[in-house]
C-alpha cells in the first residue's frame, strides 16, 4: 500500500479525528436480563429466553447499568437527558438473535460533554458528542476459508454469552487542529477514558479482553479546504494500536490524495502485525437500520434528585489525582505516565501512605516488583508483598541494618513466601556488617592480594579503591556498607578521601 512519510503528509494536510469508544460495563448481570456477565465462561452457558430472543421474553433494564452511564456522563461533563428512550437498531447479522440490537438513536442519555487530555504538556479539549446505552453482541467465529476472516468463510459459529452485556458508547465530536499530535491525542484520549472508567469503577476496561474497544475515524484536508472523506478503523485493540492506526491512515490517505485520488468512505480493519489498515465494509451507501423506539422498554427519565445523588458518588478524577500526586511526590509528567502505564499508581500511593518515601516507593514498584510481576505473569499489586513490608525494609535500610543489595534479597525471599522481612532477615542472617573489625580484616586481606592496587591508591589514584571495595563486598557476601568500607580503606592507607 502506498504511503507518504508522516511528517511530509502533515506539511500538506490537516488531520481531523473522531473516536468512538465502547465500554463493557462491569455489572453482575446483563443489560436486559439476569444472565451473568462473567468473562470466559463455557459457550452459551450464560443465556436465557431474553438474550436468546425466545418468543414472549421481555427485557427489563438493569438499574446499575443506568446508574453507571449517568455517572460516566457526569464525569465527562455531559448533560443528562430528562427523558429518553431505547431504540431498536435493525439489521441482519447472527451476532444478535433478535435481528436487532437495543441501542439508543436520537435520544442518547448523555450529551455535549468534554474530556481534557494532556499531550506533550499541551492540554487538548476533546468534546463529547454523546454517550449512549446499548447491549453487546454475541461472539462470532468464522470457519472455513483460508483466513478465518468473514470473507471466504464457509460458515460461522456463535456464542451468545456476550449478547446483552451492557455496553456504553462514547462518541467524540470531530477533533481538529491537532496536526502532528493527532495520533498521540487519540491515544491519550483512549487512555484517559480507560483511567476514568477505572476510577469510576464501572468497568475493568481491559482492551485485550474487549471490555474497552475503540474505532478511530480519520480524514485529511488541505488547509482551508472543507473536511475530507473519513474512514473508520476498527479492531484497534491496544493504546499503541490507536496511535499506530491513526498515524497509518494519515500516511495512507495522504498518498491517495497526492495521486489525485479519492478516499473511500469505508470501514477499515487495523492489522496488528504490520500496523497497516485493510479495507472492510464500504459505507458509501448510508446504512439504514430502521431505528424505532423500543416498544418493550418504557422511557428512562432520571429525576434531577437521582442525578445529583449520583454526582455525589463521583471519585476524584484521574487527571486531578495525577496532578495532586505529582506535586506531592515532586515528579514530572513523564514519571507519572510511567507509573500509570505500568498500572502501579494505586499501589505506589498506598506504599507512600504506609510511610515509605515517594522516591523509594516508586523505585521498588517500577523496578524490582514490576520485574517480578511480569516474570510471574501477575499484576504488581497482586504480588505477595505488602506496603508494610516495604515500609519495614526501608526502616532497616535507614537504620543501616540493610543495604540496597540485601534489601533486594529480603524482597526475593518475601516474594518466595519465606515470611515477613524481619523473619527473612533472621532466618537468612542478612545484616550489614557494621562492626569495623571484620571489615578491616577483609580490607587487609584484599590489600595483601592486590599490592599494586594498594600502591596506586597510596599515590592518590582514588578511583583504584573500587577494586578493593569490590573484593571486600565479595568476601562479606554483600553484607557490608560499601561507603564505610571505602572510608576504612582510605584511613588504613592514610589517604585523604
Amino acid at each position: 500500500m502506498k504511503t507518504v512519510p508522516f511528517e511530509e503528509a502533515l506539511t500538506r494536510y490537516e488531520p481531523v479525528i473522531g473516536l468512538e469508544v465502547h465500554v463493557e460495563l462491569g455489572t453482575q448481570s446483563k443489560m436486559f436480563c439476569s444472565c451473568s456477565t462473567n468473562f470466559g465462561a463455557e459457550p452459551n452457558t450464560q443465556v436465557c429466553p431474553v438474550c436468546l430472543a425466545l418468543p414472549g421474553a421481555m427485557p427489563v433494564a438493569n438499574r446499575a447499568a443506568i446508574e453507571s452511564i449517568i455517572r460516566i456522563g457526569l464525569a465527562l461533563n455531559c448533560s443528562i437527558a430528562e427523558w429518553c428512550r431505547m431504540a431498536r437498531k435493525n439489521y441482519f447479522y447472527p451476532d444478535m438473535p433478535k435481528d436487532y440490537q437495543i441501542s439508543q438513536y436520537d435520544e442518547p442519555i448523555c450529551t455535549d460533554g468534554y474530556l481534557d487530555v494532556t499531550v506533550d504538556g499541551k492540554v487538548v479539549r476533546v468534546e463529547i458528542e454523546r454517550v449512549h446505552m446499548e447491549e453487546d453482541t454475541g461472539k462470532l467465529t468464522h470457519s472455513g476459508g483460508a483466513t478465518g476472516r468473514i470473507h471466504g468463510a464457509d460458515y460461522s459459529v456463535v456464542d451468545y454469552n456476550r449478547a446483552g452485556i451492557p455496553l456504553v458508547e462514547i462518541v467524540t465530536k470531530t477533533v481538529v487542529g491537532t496536526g502532528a499530535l493527532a495520533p498521540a491525542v487519540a491515544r491519550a484520549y483512549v487512555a484517559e477514558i480507560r483511567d476514568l472508567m477505572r476510577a469510576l469503577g464501572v468497568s475493568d476496561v481491559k482492551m485485550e479482553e474487549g471490555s474497552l474497544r475503540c474505532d478511530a475515524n480519520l480524514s485529511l484536508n488541505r488547509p482551508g479546504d472543507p473536511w475530507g472523506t473519513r474512514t473508520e478503523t476498527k479492531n484497534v485493540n491496544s493504546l499503541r494500536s490507536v496511535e499506530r492506526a491513526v498515524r497509518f491512515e494519515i500516511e495512507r490517505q495522504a498518498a491517495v490524495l497526492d495521486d489525485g485520488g479519492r478516499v473511500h468512505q469505508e470501514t477499515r480493519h487495523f492489522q496488528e502485525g504490520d500496523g497497516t489498515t485493510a479495507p472492510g465494509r464500504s459505507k458509501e451507501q448510508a446504512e439504514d437500520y430502521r431505528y424505532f423506539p423500543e416498544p418493550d422498554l418504557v422511557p428512562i427519565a432520571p429525576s434531577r434528585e437521582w442525578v445529583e445523588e449520583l454526582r455525589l458518588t463521583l471519585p476524584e478524577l484521574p487527571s486531578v489525582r495525577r496532578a495532586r500526586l505529582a506535586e506531592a511526590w515532586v515528579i514530572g509528567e513523564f514519571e507519572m505516565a510511567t507509573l500509570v502505564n505500568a498500572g502501579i499508581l494505586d499501589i505506589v500511593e498506598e506504599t507512600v501512605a504506609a510511610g515509605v518515601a515517594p522516591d523509594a516507593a516508586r523505585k521498588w514498584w517500577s523496578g524490582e516488583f514490576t520485574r517480578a510481576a511480569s516474570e510471574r505473569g501477575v499484576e504488581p499489586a497482586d504480588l505477595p508483598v505488602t506496603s508494610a513490608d516495604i515500609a519495614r525494609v526501608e526502616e532497616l535500610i535507614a537504620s543501616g541494618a540493610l543495604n540496597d543489595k540485601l534489601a533486594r534479597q529480603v524482597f526475593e525471599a518475601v516474594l518466595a513466601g519465606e515470611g515477613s522481612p524481619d523473619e527473612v532477615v533472621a532466618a537468612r542472617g542478612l545484616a550489614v556488617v557494621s562492626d569495623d573489625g571484620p571489615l578491616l580484616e577483609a580490607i587487609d586481606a584484599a590489600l595483601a592480594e592486590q599490592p599494586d592496587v594498594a600502591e596506586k591508591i597510596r599515590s592518590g589514584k582514588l578511583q583504584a579503591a573500587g577494586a578493593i571495595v569490590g573484593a571486600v563486598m565479595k568476601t562479606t557476601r554483600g553484607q557490608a556498607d560499601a561507603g564505610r568500607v571505602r572510608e576504612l580503606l582510605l584511613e588504613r592507607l592514610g589517604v585523604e578521601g
Partner: protein
Amino acid sequence: MTSISRADVAHLARLARLAIPEDQLDHYAEQLDVILQSVARVGEVAAADVPAMSHPVPLLNVFREDIARPGLDREAAMAAAPAIEDDRFRVPRILDEE
C-alpha cells in the same frame, strides 16, 4: 396521504432480505399503501393536545436490580438450534457479496 413508490418497496425488500420480482413491486406498493393509510387515520383523530406516544402505558423508569441468576442450561438453550458445532450455534456463511 401516504404514497409508497416502487423504489420504496424495492428498498424495504432489500433491507428485509426479501426477493420481490420487478413485476410485483407495484402490487406490493399498492397493498402497503392501503395498510399505511388505514393506520394514518389514527392521526386524524388525535387532537393537537394529545402528545405522540411510543408506549401504551404511561410508565417510566422500570428497572431490575443488578443480580445475576442462572438462565437456561446449554442443552435447553440450544434445543431449537438448526445446527450446532463446538457448543455454538452454527449459522450459514454471512456475506456472499464482496
